[in-house]
């Protein structure tokens, strides 16, 4: 159908980012193709190696899912997106396809092994999330392609993660957000993935910060070194949410806090993670 309608047509999923953009005339499609009435596109499933999310699964469904809690940072992310009303409508697939630099899902999922399954006229394909997000509001999707499913590998035993976003109030995009996924053996960090959101055109993997933790014991010193490396990796723009320096300082604080929560979870503790409000 989107092929018949031509280049002026666009898909709409939950619409919680797209409809505000339409009102601002930032997007001006001639036609919208609504994905909401297609059955079988909203699900959360588990197989031996991965959790699978249908593209039209609402944030609220992930927030409520006990299955999704197997990877705690997914629950952190889902439960903190905007507010109840937006979580009831907004979808995980739509969030990735929109690729808003301030969106939550891309930043959370990029710390995990995530595959984006897509379908278009040429058939189905699977894209690593790191190759899927190209730039602000730009993905690897062809015009006639939709996201059908996200496949998130279940991390190895001894892993824990956390997603923290700092927001001025619930409905707004975060001023900065941080995702941390760790794998520990005793107190040594075997592996670390750290991503920063809202402080660049896409989510940024803070690879130097990851290196600062890998193979080390987690203590105040190594955590501070990782947080400083994350500050250097952030590339924020000053805007109504704060100056660039303020956002870098936020990144430092969020990285420290997220590492601590992730480490406690990796050791098997139940820790409630919540987004932070000004």
């Amino acid at each position, binding site marked *: 159908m989107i092929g018949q309608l031509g280049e002026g047509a666009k898909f709409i999923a939950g*619409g*919680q980012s797209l*409809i*505000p953009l339409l*009102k601002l005339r930032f997007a001006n499609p001639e036609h*919208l193709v*609504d994905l*909401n009435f297609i059955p079988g596109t909203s699900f959360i499933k588990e197989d031996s190696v991965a959790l699978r999310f249908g593209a039209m699964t609402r944030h*609220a469904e992930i927030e409520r899912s006990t299955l999704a809690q197997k990877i705690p940072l997914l629950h952190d992310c889902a439960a903190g997106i*905007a*507010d*109840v*009303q*937006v979580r*009831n*409508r907004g979808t995980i697939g739509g969030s990735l396809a929109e690729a808003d630099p301030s969106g939550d899902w891309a930043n959370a999922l990029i710390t995990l092994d995530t595959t984006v399954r897509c379908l278009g006229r040429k058939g189905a394909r699977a894209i690593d999330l790191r190759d899927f997000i190209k730039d602000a509001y730009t993905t690897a999707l062809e015009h006639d392609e939709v996201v059908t499913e996200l496949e998130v590998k279940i991390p190895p035993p001894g892993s824990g993660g956390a997603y923290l976003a700092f927001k001025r*109030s*619930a*409905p*707004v995009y975060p001023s900065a957000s941080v995702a941390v996924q760790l794998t520990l053996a005793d107190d040594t960090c075997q592996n670390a993935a750290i991503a920063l959101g809202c402080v660049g055109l896409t989510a940024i993997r803070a690879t130097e910060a990851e290196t600062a933790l890998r193979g080390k014991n987690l203590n105040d010193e190594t955590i501070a070194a990782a947080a400083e490396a994350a500050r250097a990796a952030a590339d924020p723009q000053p805007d109504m949410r704060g100056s660039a320096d303020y956002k870098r300082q936020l990144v430092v604080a969020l990285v420290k806090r997220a590492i601590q929560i992730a480490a406690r979870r990796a050791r098997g503790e139940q820790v409630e993670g919540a987004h932070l409000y000004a």
Partner: protein
Amino acid sequence: MPEAAAVEKIAVNINVNGKAYSRQVEPRMLLVEFVREACDLTGTHVGCDTTYCGACTVLMNGLAVKSCTMFAVQADGSEITTVEGLEKGGKLHPIQKAFGDSYGLQCGYCTPGLMLSAHQLLSENPEPNEKEIRKAIAGNTCRCTGYMNIFKAIELAGRNMKGA
């Protein structure tokens, strides 16, 4: 200004507060415009029109949604509850009564949206604590009350609904 081309209208059937409304609407019509203009139910308010304030909150199949951030055609076949649907047989819903009894409103502009967010919360959790109430109404902005009496109203409504 050249005259805009006539837009093809689409038939929608939406059940609002238990009553079926069948209308021909432009695809771009927002759900809040459908409720206010096509159904003439003006209790649902437009506050910010930017998905922020929650004044336009209605229930769609029992879940709170911002009706300024959905097209009417997307609600085709669904059940919508607006503030007008809370009252039954001339009797205020316990949530409405509690907002009055607890002074949970001042100007009243945000109140319909807040009551519908409270409705979703209390139907899932009749005894919410303050943290749960805060989370449930985080998408509803009130510029008068400071929220404290709204928390009290929602707690009271929960107690009264449980006792009912």
